[in-house]
Structures are given as structure tokens and as C-alpha cells.
């Protein structure tokens, strides 16, 4: 935010393409504003912040949680929210992505929320559309609003992110959530540990400035926060891991392994969970540790804040 705006400037608009485009002041600006939106997110009282603005959710990849969260966030602030899920059509293949951008420009959309299975799609669209683009997940690259909502959730419980030991565990290789969280948490002074079977750990993970583990027990020791990632079923069919039961035995979070973390450790999961694969129900549902439901709630508040900041900036520059 050194130049006074939030997000990455491409063309005439600012965009949230990744945590990689933010500095710590920008992160704090989102978190502080999101705090003020929590009760509003809860109560559902509409406001006039985004009245007359159009938010378009463009989800090339299926999603329930993130899409609904953005829809709610937009509506809570009074925006017109439209959702398109062109999966299965020719568009999903990416061929006519830029035709889509042209169409959207003609519709004068203010904010475009995009999810796609290819890394770099949000950045590509940001170059071609007049709207502010929010990356809601692009391949294995970034999912910035997830990292922001995770940070908000942690900060509400611990008061700060600095100095905390956060263990991110599971399929790191294919995870945009892990990449965004590593960037954000490292920037805010947390100590980040990554844990995965070697087949699901990027070869260069040690160069990310994190501690790398293949033994979940070692990774959990004295951790303040445990983030479990979803193991997608297709990873098993492509032989990254031998079976779900073997994965659960060594990399699934259960009570016994969680006991190695700090007694007040937070358990997080970006959802949707595979119970009995990466996380045991006894842990996922244990409200003494699990803040998984709260993450969903914080998601709406964080997305309200991001929409507000981007539109505010566009208005200032109009």
C-alpha cells in the first residue's frame, strides 16, 4: 500500500491476485476492516457500501463454500451479485477466456471474482478486463482470501500472528491455500512448518523459507496452529499416495497426534473436509480446538473487506 492503494495495479484498476502482491500493511488493512464487518456479516443487515455496484462470480472450477461466501459478502454490502459457473462448457477449457473478458467488459462489471484450475488465470484476466479482479483460486498458485480469513481467525484467538508456530499439513504440492498461507504468515512473522509425504511436497519447499517435515508428529510438536489441507481423491488414483488408509495412518490428524501440539492449539481446515483421510471427526468436531466453522464465518467478513477496499479505490480513482 506504499502508493496509497490496496492490491496490485494493472491497467486502471487494482486487483487482489495473490498475497504475493501485498505487503504487511495491506494485510492489516484487510484484517482490521474485516473485524468491523464481523457483526454485520453475522446479522445480515445490508449496507450501502456497494450499492449500485456489480460483483460477478466467475467460477470455472466447482466450489460451494468460496462462491457462496463471495455472494453473501457482496449482498451484505448491497452489491448486485451474479454468479456464473461455466464448467462443462467450452469456456471451462479456457479457450474462450478472453472472449469472456470482452463480454464482461461490455457488461460494466465492477468486481470480477474468478476461480480457475489454471495458475495465472486471474492475472491474465486482470490484463484484459476493466473490472477489479479477485483471485478466488487459480490452480496451485494462490487463494489469497483464504489466507486472509485464516489470518483473521488466528488473530482473533491469539491476538497476533507474530511468533506463532503454524503447521500446514497435507497435500502441499497441489495446494494454493498452502502457498498463500506461507506467503502471508511468513510476512506477518509466524514460523511456518510444512508437512507432507515427500510425494506431495514441492521439491523447492525448503527454499520458501519454511521448515519442511515428512513426519507429522515432529511437525505438530508445540505448534500453536494446525492447518490441515484437503487430499483430493484423484491424487490417490495418480499414485501420489498408496491409499487413503495409509495416508490417514501417517498424515491424518487424530487426537493422539494433536496431543503433541500446544494444549490450546487451533485446528483449521479450508474445507471441504475428507473425514477419516486428513482429519478425524473427533478432532474436526472438538470445539476446544477446532475453529473450522469460525473460518467460514470469517470468510464472509474478509471478503466484504476486500470488496470494499477494491471498490473504494476504484471510486477514488474514477
Amino acid at each position: 500500500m506504499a502508493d496509497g492503494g490496496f492490491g496490485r495495479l494493472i491497467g486502471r484498476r487494482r486487483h487482489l491476485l495473490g498475497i504475493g502482491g501485498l505487503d504487511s500493511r495491506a494485510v492489516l488493512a484487510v484484517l482490521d476492516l474485516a473485524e468491523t464487518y464481523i457483526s454485520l456479516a453475522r446479522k445480515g443487515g445490508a449496507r450501502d457500501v456497494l450499492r449500485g455496484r456489480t460483483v460477478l462470480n466467475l467460477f470455472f472450477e466447482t466450489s460451494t463454500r468460496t462462491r457462496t461466501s463471495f455472494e453473501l459478502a457482496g449482498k451484505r454490502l448491497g452489491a448486485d451479485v451474479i454468479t456464473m459457473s461455466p464448467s462443462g462448457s467450452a469456456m471451462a477449457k479456457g479457450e474462450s477466456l478472453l472472449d469472456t473478458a470482452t463480454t464482461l467488459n461490455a457488461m460494466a462489471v465492477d468486481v470480477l471474482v474468478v476461480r480457475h484450475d489454471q495458475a495465472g488465470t486471474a492475472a491474465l484476466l486482470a490484463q484484459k478486463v476493466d473490472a477489479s479482479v479477485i483471485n478466488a483460486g487459480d490452480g496451485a498458485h494462490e487463494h489469497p482470501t483464504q489466507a486472509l480469513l485464516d489470518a483473521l481467525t488466528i488473530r482473533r484467538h491469539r491476538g497476533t500472528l507474530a511468533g506463532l508456530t503454524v503447521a500446514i499439513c497435507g497435500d502441499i504440492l497441489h495446494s494454493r491455500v498452502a502457498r498463500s498461507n506461507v506467503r502471508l504468515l511468513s510476512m506477518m512473522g509466524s514460523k511456518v512448518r510444512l508437512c507432507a509425504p515427500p510425494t506431495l511436497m514441492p521439491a523447492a519447499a525448503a527454499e520458501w523459507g519454511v521448515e519442511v517435515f515428512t513426519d507429522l508428529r515432529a511437525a505438530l510438536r508445540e505448534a500453536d496452529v494446525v492447518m490441515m489441507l484437503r487430499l483430493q481423491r484423484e491424487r490417490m488414483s495418480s499414485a501420489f499416495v498408496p491409499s487413503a488408509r495409509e495416508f490417514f495412518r501417517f498424515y491424518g490428524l487424530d487426537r493422539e497426534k494433536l496431543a503433541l501440539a500446544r494444549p490450546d492449539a487451533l485446528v483449521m481446515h479450508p474445507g471441504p473436509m475428507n473425514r477419516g483421510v486428513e482429519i478425524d471427526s473427533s478432532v474436526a468436531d472438538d470445539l476446544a480446538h477446532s475453529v473450522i466453522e469460525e473460518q467460514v464465518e470469517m470468510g464472509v467478513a474478509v471478503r466484504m473487506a476486500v470488496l470494499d477496499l477494491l471498490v473504494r479505490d476504484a471510486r477514488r480513482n474514477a
Partner: protein
Amino acid sequence: MKTLFRHVHLLDPASGRDSLGSLLVVDGRIAALDPPEWPSDAAVVEGAGLCLCPGLIDLRVGLREPGEEHKESLATLAARAAAGGVTTLVALPDTSPPLDQPALVEFVSRRAASFGSVTVLPMGAATKGCAGRELAEMGLLREAGAVAFSDGRRAIAEARTMRLALAYAAAFGAMVVQHPQEPSLSAGAVATEGLLASSLGLPAAPAAAEAILVARDIRLAELTGGHVHFSPVSTSEALDLIRAAKARGLRVTCDTAPPYFDLNETAIGEWRTYARLSPPLRSEADRLAVLAALADGTIDAIASDHQPQDTDAKRLPFALAEPGGVGLETLLAVTLNAVHHGSLRLLDAIALLTSRPAALLGLECGRLAPGAPADLCLFDRDLAWQIRADDLIGPSRNTPFDGRPMQGRVVGTWKAGVKVFG
């Protein structure tokens, strides 16, 4: 018809000539160097110190005709070659349909010849359909003019197939050109494994995917007595293996392409699909190793690996974009960059573009000698300019070098004594 080039800096790696002089062309062939008398009926090209070298011989060019003429026709290819000083090029067989039929090989060379500016020497498919299973009719393809055999941008994956191809091609005196990327490790990969690819979340293959296939095929060349040529080579580890194989006297050769000694993976930046190449751009350490292997002779040729892709194929999310970059027009300039940076001697650089690829294929061109075809490239070794994609001959302008400042440029090209560019 006579043409006299005078006051030119003659560069002929085959003879070691590297000095000012003159050159006389009569009826499409070089008649004399430094003729004692200048004929009065000759057209004169006043060199004023410009460099004159044999027309460049490019060992690796992707064709888009037949099959994808909207990306590049043979007519456009011929124009681009002339603009790059390239007078002979070796074409990959992975067109659509692939060059696995003698008639297709003849079609390509004959049609290209009709434009008059460049000799196109097609490779034949090593396997039917370039599909990697059954051997193509190498003997018949060779008779039709195929100069080597390859499956193009697709590696011959099966060790057994590669063994048979090497053994069989040897009977017809041809080399097998292998794209050295181990296919199962490289499947779906669009970048080299490392910090950059992992940060961008791009599917990546380890650099070792190259050395792994090179190691196997060196062993198969030894087993069969065949000649394997790796194209293009881009990693330190693979080059070490090739260097060692050559020291043992095996029939192993290789080329590289300008992106692999002028750029590293950071050229990808944030999703620049023009820098999506196959093999993918490598680390800085690998780039330096390629330069060292050019200087010490391990690499036999610099080829453009010209791969035209139009906007529709490139304006996509990075991993969905087609790989490849155009390179004919910039081949000499980017190579001269390595000379100006002190990594390569000028005459060695020209050898990698002329006499050495000629020797690999037993061609009579690629040298400045009486009797040789008057295929010539005149260039200004110091002219400063900038590569701009928009300035290239279209429709495919996918250069990974867009925006790079250059020093040195082709100013004239002659094919069999006829000026075709400049």
C-alpha cells in the same frame, strides 16, 4: 551472372578465414576468394567492413505446413529464413499429417524450393505418425530426401523402439534426432522444477528428466552403433553426459537453441506464455553450462528451434498455452550476444551456425570455398537494435526475446548467388 563482394570481413570457420577480403560469385557458386582481378561485368556489393559468412544452416525448425498454415505457411517460413540469414534449414517431421510418407517429404522440400530463398531439408518421421510405436519407412523416406529421423517434439519413449530406430537408421546412414525429455517425468510439465515453478504453482518436471533420457539413449547408441543427436539440449547434467560420450568416441551429437543460452526461467516472469518452451527454460546455472558447452565444442550446432504459435495458442493461462517460440529471424543476433559478452569466439559462433551443422549432415554448403554454393549471409556485427515481437514477420510473432536489446544484425542474404533479403 557475377557478383563481387568487396571490402568484406570474410568469416569461414571451415578454413579458419577471419579477415578482410573479397569474394566472387559466378552463376550461383563461389568462384574465388580474393580474386586478383575484379571482373568489370560483376555486380558489386560494397561491404565497408561488414561480415560475410556462409548462409546459416538451422538444424531444428518446426513446420506448420502441412496442417497449420494459419500459423505459418512455407512461403512465410521462407521469408523469415531469408530475414534471418538462414539459407538451409532442417525441418521437423511432426506436421499434420506427420512426414512419415515419402510423398510428404518430397512435397515439403519441393514446395519450399519454389520460393527460392531457402533449402528445406525435411527429417522423416522415426515412427509411423510420430506416435512412437512402429518404425516408419526410413529407407523410402531417405530416398525421398529425408536427412535424419525424429519424432519431432515428442521423445521416442520406449527404449526398445529407440533401439530399433537407431539400429535401422544407421543402415541408411542417418542419425536419429531425439527430443531429450523423459516423457513420464515430463508429462504435463510446463516449467523446470524449482523455486520459481513452485511459487507460481506451475506443473514442473525436474531438470534431470533430460539427463535421464540422454543417459539411456547414449547407452542405446553404443549398443546399436547408431548415431543419436539430442535436440535441443538445455541442462548441465545432460551436457556432461554428452561430453563424456564424445570422449569415448560414441556417435553422439547435440544442438541447443538461443533461449537456452540467452535466457533463464525468470523470463517466465508472471505468466509470459511466449517464454513457455519445450524443454522449459532452465536455471541460471544450466544457462551458463550451455554457454560453456558451446565454447568447448560439446554442442555441435545452434539451431533456432523455430516453433510458430499464433495469438490464440498463446493468449491462454500459462499451462494451457502451446509451447515454443519463433527464432529464425533472431538466430544470429542472439548468438552474437554471446560473442559480445565474451562467452564465445566469433568464428566459433559462426561455425555452430554453418560448418558444423553442415558436417553433421554431410552438406556441401556452409563454407566459403570455390565451388561451394553461393549461400551467403552479410551482417553487421555491431548494429544496435531491439527485438520487438510486432516487427517480426507474422502471423506468429511468439518470440521469447521480445524487448531484448541486441548488438548485431543480418543485413543481406543470398541464396545460390541471388539476393533474397536486404
